């Protein structure tokens, strides 16, 4: 039985990915800040991915659990509101969870020969659109996206394909907490759908996956007219945010 690693497997997209993998017969190691129940085929590791000491210990522990036939670096947190109104400690945690930890874990797994299959980094549609009202989140997701692009060839030489996933808004608690006033949750993609699309693309070794046709249109518009899209994002999100959430 092949083993998959999923970070942020306790909720939202991560949980949907874990459940799908279990249904397909994978053995899953799920890492999450919250404690979780361990069921047959699923091993839960509780770890605060914003804590450097905890991450170092996790990296060591994962070294003895592989090889992994798949790794999905999905864990992420956000901080929405006016940039200057959110404490720097929250940004420190965000940058560590979203960018530093997945880079460090992936490099460690590849270096130690613990990866025996594809790898996926979950960034965000904000990589294409920008995200006023979440400038540091946008920074962390851009950093992760370009890390994925940068390591694709060097990791491929070691037999590890790298997929960059840029999902748009999902129907998760995470999105609900950070959505602007009046946002329509029904228009967000169910996490189960995004999980299926992202896993299929990762197992096929695709370079990039943006789940959903509407999201792909948004990504294209952001590429073609970045300034226009950024101003539109301001109207849609920043101007409608009611206070800060982190």
């Amino acid at each position, binding site marked *: 039985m092949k083993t998959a690693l999923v970070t942020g497997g306790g909720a939202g997209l991560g949980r949907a990915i874990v459940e799908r993998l279990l249904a397909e017969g994978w053995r899953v190691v799920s890492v999450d800040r919250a404690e979780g129940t361990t069921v047959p085929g699923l091993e839960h590791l509780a770890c605060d991915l914003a804590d*450097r000491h905890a*991450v*170092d210990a996790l*990296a060591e522990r994962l070294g003895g659990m592989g090889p992994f036939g798949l790794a999905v670096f999905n864990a992420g947190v956000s901080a929405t509101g*006016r*940039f*200057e109104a959110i404490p*720097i400690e929250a*940004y*420190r945690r965000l*940058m560590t969870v979203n*960018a*530093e930890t997945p*880079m*460090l874990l992936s*490099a*460690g797994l*590849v*270096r130690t020969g613990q990866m025996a299959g594809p790898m996926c980094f979950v960034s965000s549609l*904000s*990589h294409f659109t*920008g*995200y*006023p*009202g*979440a*400038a*540091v989140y*946008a*920074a*962390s*997701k*851009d*950093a*992760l*996206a*370009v*890390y994925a*692009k*940068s*390591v*694709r*060839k*060097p*990791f491929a030489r*070691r037999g590890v394909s790298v997929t960059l996933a840029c999902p748009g808004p999902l129907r998760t608690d995470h999105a609900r907490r950070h959505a602007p006033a009046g946002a329509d949750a029904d228009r967000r993609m169910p996490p189960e759908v995004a999980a299926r699309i992202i896993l299929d693309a990762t197992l096929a070794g695709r370079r990039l996956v943006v789940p959903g046709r509407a999201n792909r249109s948004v990504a294209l518009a952001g590429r073609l007219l*970045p*300034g226009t899209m*950024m*101003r539109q*994002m*301001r109207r849609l999100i*920043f101007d409608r945010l009611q206070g800060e959430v982190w």
Partner: protein
Amino acid sequence: MPRQKRILITGATSGIGLALVVRHAPDAAVLATGRRSAEEARRVLPDGVAYVQADQRHPERAVAAILSALDDLGWDRLDLAVLNAGTGHAVDPAGETPQMLRDVLDANLFCAVTLAQALRPRLEAGQGRLVLIGSTARKGAAGFASYAAAKAGLHGFARALAEEWRGRIAVQVVHPGPTDTGMHARAGHDPGRLVRLFARTGTMARLIDAAIARGRTVETISFARFLGRGEGGR
């Protein structure tokens, strides 16, 4: 008489940062920061430039040192902050240790985020301008993966912040192409004969100042922009 401009430049003891200091020191009050000791910095900086040692691999400490230096100077407003400090390693990404990754992300990206927040009141008071120095590597670089990632982060951060702060503080990100800064050598990378095509730091500093004057949120100063310009392109 118009008041003298107050300018903060980070990573200012070598490379593009030093070239920017040299350009601005004759007309403006400049606070330079860098990793080197004050004594070492004195040897390279022009006279009259204030200096504070701030190792950006430790963002919280670096920012505290810079704020304290601004207090000592009595600068409650800033006209321009150029966040230029950067560091990288030329290494197979699988060989990047946790310490290397953390240093690169902290020094290039998180320190800039922390500084942007800490400098905001002074920039707002001075109706000032925040300029982040990125890199053309921000689209991805196999031999500089974490550096490319950090610079991409600066790009996304600057674009979003420019929109948030529109009308209050101008925010720009400028991406220089390959420049003869010595950074490649320090990073353990030998660019070989290609280095002859790299922009000289003085040329790059001039082009960065021109980009700042144009005021666009995103500017890229690629090979094509500096080849064939003054000093034989260099």
